[in-house]
Structure formats: structure tokens, C-alpha cells
């Protein structure tokens, strides 16, 4: 292995990182569906999946097996090539966006090569992200059209019209962040948010600079929720409306690909929101000596979770739960102990921990919005996109650039 | 050595293919797409020359070509929609109002 890596260092290291990241992202996708079902269920005072494995933890596996073994019909008269291309396009584009997201500040060593934590860092990383997002419209439009059926066609046209209407507001809402950071590269956007106000408050873009980007964040998040076709903007694909919208005629694995593409887009949007507005991997606590205890917050979180799982698992109803849950709890506790004993590992895990925690909070916000808010009608949806978000984001750009120019004088 | 000469030959080939598509296809929308192909070939030539001479004027001009192509596509497709409504066909041989 070392010989191969020495021969083609960049290629081999990047391939290893891609494989690891794909594995992590696909597992996260699967358990994001579990998380969503549990949270929405608890919002609706019911339990969600709890039979398949302890606390329903094997439900994503069961769903995956179901998708693999289900019958795979294609509608008569459907345009073959485009019909099979559309879900492939949707999923591939959604997964490609993870290539430019940075996960932590420090470099890691893979088989002797130093490499940053994240697959790559482009000069125009943010633009490439928007480029891939704008290509995502094709997955939806082509799926709707190639199904040779009226509900998918209408749902596909509506959904893609919604997607590229909100793309404008999405792209404009981040221009304030770009003006303040001075670069399209995601790492540099995070590095421009270093420093503290009065030694304590982090200089995140949402409270920093000449103009705190609160309007920008609001426009960005609302536009992103609409862009990913999630509630409350999911009229084109809701079950009680146009049957199921553009993916009506898709079954089993192709539907699973659309599903995965949608959740991958959700994760990408959450990652971008933390990077651009909430400082990415920058911890909310200052690195001063009086705050050094905050370095043990990841440890405390893992230890707390591990102990809860351990003691709750011992009292679980099924035998499998009584074995698996305490084992998981013990694994988390030993991870916490490992971080206490190895300060190097603890320092390394700080950046990714805060990044992933913020991403998790945004994903929770997504699921919370789905469980709580009613659906918007299509004309209300388009009116918000064009008449509210676009002028708001333009006003944000104007104010940010005015204040920046005035400060530079 | 950047591959500018090869890119210029590719640009010429693309332009030729665009001309062939423009002349030989019958569907109005496909002919319009052939025009976009020719514009893309010209964009490639601009970017290649910008690389050769190290100036950014070529890329600025590509920016303007893309914007003008967008405006032209919008209006052109609106006209095509009108023609399709009037003649109930997208075949360019049916749009022969000015024939003697």
C-alpha cells in the first residue's frame, strides 16, 4: 500500500478519502431518515419505528433491503434512456457536492502523506457548489417528463420551476458573506471568521463584520429549504397533492436514489449554512486559558450519551436491545476516555466536532420545520421566492457593500 | 505547455459540427441548439486566446457572449413557441410563408 501511495500520492490519497467520505455520507443518509421519522413521530406524540432493532435502529437497513428486492416496473411508453438517467443524475450530483466541503482545520496523515481534512479545496469552491446545485434541476425535470404520465409531468415542471426560482435568492443571499470574506474558497470563508469580539464572542458571519448577515442567513435557509423540495415547500412531491409528484412512476431502487439525493442535498445545505454563517469548525468558546475546560465538551457529550445508552439499554424490552444498546453505550464511554487520555486526539477532534454539531443542529431544524409547519400553496410559494426573498437578498447585498465601502474609506 | 493549439483546433471542429447541424436538421429547436453550439465553439476560442496572451479580455468577452446568448435564447424560444402555435409543427420546412 505504501508503494502505491508513494507512486501516485495525490491520486491514491484522494481516492482513499473519497471512499471513506462516501461510506460516511451514505451511512449518515440512512440514519438521517431514521432520525427524521423518530423526531416527526415524537412531534406528533407517537413513537416512530421501534420494532426493527432496538429503538428502530435497524429500520434504515430494512428499508434498504426492501428497496433492493421490490419489483421494478417502468411505465409503458416511457422514454427509456432519460427515465433511467434522471435518478442517477439526481443522486450523483447531490453526492458530488461533498467534494468541496472542508471538515476540519488540521491536516491528517494517510499512509505518510499530509493532506487536508476534506477532499479538496477549490479557489471557486462556492461557485462550483452552486453550479452542481443548478444542474440538479435536470434530475427533477427529466424524471417528470420521461414518465409519460400527467401527474409526474405537472409535478416535475412545478418542482423544477420552484427550484430555479429559489436559486436566484439562494445565490444572492450569500453575496454578503462573499463580500466580507473576499474569496470563493470555503476554507478561506471560515478563516475570515476567526477572531473574537471583546475576547469572548466568536466573529461568525451572522454577528460579525460591518453588517451582521442575519437577513442573508434567513434568505439562504428559506431558499435552501425550497431548493431541496422540503417542507413547507414540498407541494410538488407531497403525497396528498399531485400523487407523488415527479417520482410517482419510480419504484424501488430508482425511488431510493431520489430519496438519497434529497437527503444528501439537505446535508450539503446544512454544511454550507454552518460554513458561511456560523463559522464552520470555529468553536463558540474562545481559546483563552480561562475557557480551556471547553476542550472537554466533546468528551462530556460522548460520556453522557454513552452512560445514558448503557443504563437505558439494560432495561430495554427485547434481548437484542439489552445486548446491543449497552455495547454501544460502552463504546461511546471508551471513546470519551480515549479523548481524555490522548490530548493530541482531543485537540484534533475539536474542529470536526463543532462542525458536525452545527450541521446536526441544522438538520434538526430541517426536520423540525417538516414536522411543524403546514405546506405552502404553489402560488404562495412562488410569490415568496420572487417577491420576498429576491428583494430581501438584493437589499442585503446593497447594505453589506455600502457598509463595507464606508468602512474602508 | 498549455494545450492552446489543440483547444483552437477543437474550437474549429466544434464550429464546423455546429454548421453541419444547423444546415441538416429540420426541427426548429435543434437548429437553435446548433447556434448555441457555434457560440460555445467561439467561447472556447476566446478562452484559449486569453490563455495564450495572458490577458483577461478574452474571458470578459466570454462573459458577455454568455449573457447575450441567454437573452437571445429567451426571445428566440418565445418566437419558436409562437411559430409552433401558428403552424402546429416544428418542422422548418413548414415555415415557408415568404416562399414565392
Amino acid at each position, binding site marked *: 500500500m505504501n508503494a502505491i501511495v508513494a507512486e501516485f500520492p495525490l491520486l491514491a490519497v484522494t481516492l482513499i478519502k473519497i471512499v471513506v467520505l462516501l461510506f460516511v455520507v451514505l451511512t449518515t443518509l440512512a440514519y438521517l431518515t431514521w432520525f427524521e421519522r423518530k423526531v416527526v413521530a415524537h412531534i406528533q406524540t407517537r413513537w416512530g419505528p421501534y420494532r426493527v432493532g432496538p429503538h428502530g435502529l435497524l429500520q434504515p437497513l430494512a428499508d434498504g433491503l426492501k428497496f433492493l428486492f421490490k419489483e421494478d416496473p417502468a411505465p409503458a411508453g416511457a422514454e427509456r434512456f432519460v427515465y433511467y438517467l434522471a435518478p442517477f443524475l439526481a443522486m450523483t450530483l447531490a453526492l458530488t457536492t461533498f467534494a468541496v466541503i472542508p471538515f476540519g482545520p488540521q491536516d491528517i496523515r494517510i499512509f505518510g502523506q499530509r493532506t487536508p481534512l476534506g477532499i479538496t479545496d477549490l479557489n471557486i469552491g462556492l461557485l462550483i457548489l452552486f453550479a452542481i446545485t443548478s444542474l440538479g434541476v435536470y434530475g427533477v425535470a427529466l424524471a417528470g417528463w420521461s414518465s409519460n404520465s400527467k401527474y409526474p409531468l405537472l409535478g416535475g415542471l412545478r418542482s423544477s420551476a420552484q427550484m430555479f426560482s429559489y436559486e436566484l435568492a439562494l445565490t444572492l443571499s450569500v453575496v454578503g458573506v462573499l463580500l466580507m470574506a473576499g474569496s470563493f474558497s470555503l476554507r478561506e470563508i471560515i478563516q475570515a471568521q476567526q477572531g473574537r469580539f471583546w475576547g469572548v464572542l466568536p466573529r461568525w458571519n451572522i454577528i460579525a463584520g460591518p453588517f451582521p448577515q442575519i437577513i442573508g442567513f434567513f434568505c439562504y435557509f428559506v431558499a435552501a429549504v425550497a431548493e431541496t423540495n422540503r417542507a413547507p415547500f414540498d407541494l410538488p412531491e407531497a403525497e396528498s397533492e399531485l400523487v407523488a409528484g415527479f417520482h410517482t412512476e419510480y419504484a424501488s431502487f430508482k425511488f431510493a436514489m431520489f430519496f438519497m439525493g434529497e437527503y444528501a442535498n439537505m446535508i450539503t445545505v446544512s454544511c454550507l449554512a454552518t460554513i458561511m454563517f456560523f463559522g464552520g469548525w470555529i468553536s463558540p468558546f474562545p481559546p483563552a486559558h480561562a475557557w480551556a475546560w471547553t476542550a472537554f465538551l466533546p468528551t462530556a457529550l460522548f460520556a453522557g450519551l454513552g452512560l445514558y445508552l448503557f443504563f437505558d439499554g439494560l432495561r430495554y424490552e427485547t434481548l437484542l436491545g439489552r445486548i446491543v444498546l449497552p455495547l454501544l453505550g460502552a463504546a461511546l464511554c471508551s471513546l470519551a476516555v480515549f479523548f481524555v487520555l490522548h490530548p493530541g486526539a482531543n485537540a484534533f477532534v475539536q474542529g470536526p466536532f463543532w462542525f458536525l454539531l452545527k450541521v446536526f443542529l441544522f438538520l434538526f431544524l430541517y426536520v423540525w420545520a417538516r414536522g411543524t409547519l403546514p405546506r405552502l400553496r404553489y402560488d404562495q410559494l412562488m410569490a415568496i421566492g420572487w417577491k420576498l426573498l429576491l428583494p430581501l437578498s438584493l437589499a442585503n447585498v446593497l447594505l453589506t457593500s455600502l457598509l463595507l465601502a464606508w468602512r474602508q474609506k | 505547455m498549455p494545450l492552446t*493549439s489543440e483547444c483552437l483546433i477543437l474550437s474549429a*471542429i466544434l464550429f464546423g459540427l455546429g454548421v453541419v447541424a444547423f444546415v*441538416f436538421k*429540420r426541427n426548429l429547436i435543434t437548429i437553435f441548439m446548433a447556434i448555441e453550439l457555434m457560440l460555445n465553439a467561439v467561447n472556447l476560442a476566446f478562452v484559449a486566446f486569453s490563455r495564450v496572451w495572458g490577458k483577461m479580455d478574452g474571458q470578459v468577452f466570454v462573459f458577455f457572449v454568455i449573457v447575450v*446568448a*441567454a437573452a437571445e435564447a429567451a*426571445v428566440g424560444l*418565445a418566437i419558436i413557441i409562437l411559430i409552433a402555435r401558428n403552424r402546429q409543427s416544428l418542422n422548418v420546412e413548414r415555415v415557408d410563408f415568404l416562399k414565392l
Partner: protein
Amino acid sequence: MTVQNILFFVFAALVVAGAVSLILQRHPIHCALSLIVVMVSLAGLYLLLGAEFVAAVQIIVYAGAIMVLFVFVIMLLNAGEEERTNLSRLAHAAGVPLALALTAVLGVILTKAARLGGVKPLPPTPTHTLAMFLFRDYVFPFELTSFLILVAILGAVVLAQRER
């Protein structure tokens, strides 16, 4: 055989394959998909030539907006497969060699023009320099294009309205 050469041949092959597919396919939606392949591969070529902002704009605007407009119009008009043409055989026989001749002339002129000076290096921050050019030297055409887009929007909306 550096990585750049390999990448160039991959992208160039994709571009030519997409353009030939545009000519050979009969259904307009397949032609549109071929053109999207051409545009995305061209964006890859722009990246190889060092024009990063133009590559991103090519994907966002050309492949992500203009071609979406084409695909929507094809779906709206329910365009079917192309019919046979009744163009004369002479035109077919004479057309292809003439197009080849045009391509050859263009290729010769362009490569001769490129050899006039040596290859000079691009500025280190191309996006920043491009922005400086666009908003200082070329600001008047920039404002004119905003006016042009406004006129195009109005024209498209008025032309494509339903019959009253």
C-alpha cells in the same frame, strides 16, 4: 502523458461525441442532453485553460439555466421525433465537404494566430483580475447587458403569452 494531457483528451472526446450526437439524434430532448454534455465538458476545458470563473459561469448560466429553458420548451411543445427531410441529395453530398473545408480554414487561421507570440502567463488571481476588468474597463457594456436582459425578459413574456 501528463495528467493534463489525459484530462484534455477525455474532455475533448466528450465534446466531440456530444456534438456528433447532437447531429445524429432524432428526438430533440436527446439533442438537448448531448448539448448539455458538450457544455459541461467545455467547462472542464476552461478549467484546464485556467479560466476558473468562466468555467463556473458556463455551468451555472449556460448548462444550468439556458439549457433548462430549452428542455422546458421541448416539454411544453411536446416535440416529437424529427421527420425525414426532402432536401436534395446534391445538397447533402456537397454540404459535408464544404463544412470540412470551413473547419480546416478556421483551424489553420486560428493556430497561425496563436503562434504569433509566445504563451504568456495568466495573472495569479484570475477571478479578482476579471472582476477588476469587468467593473472598471468594461463597466459600460456590463450595464448595457443588464438593460439587454431586461428587454429580453419583457420580450419573452409578451411573446409567449396565451391568446387573449
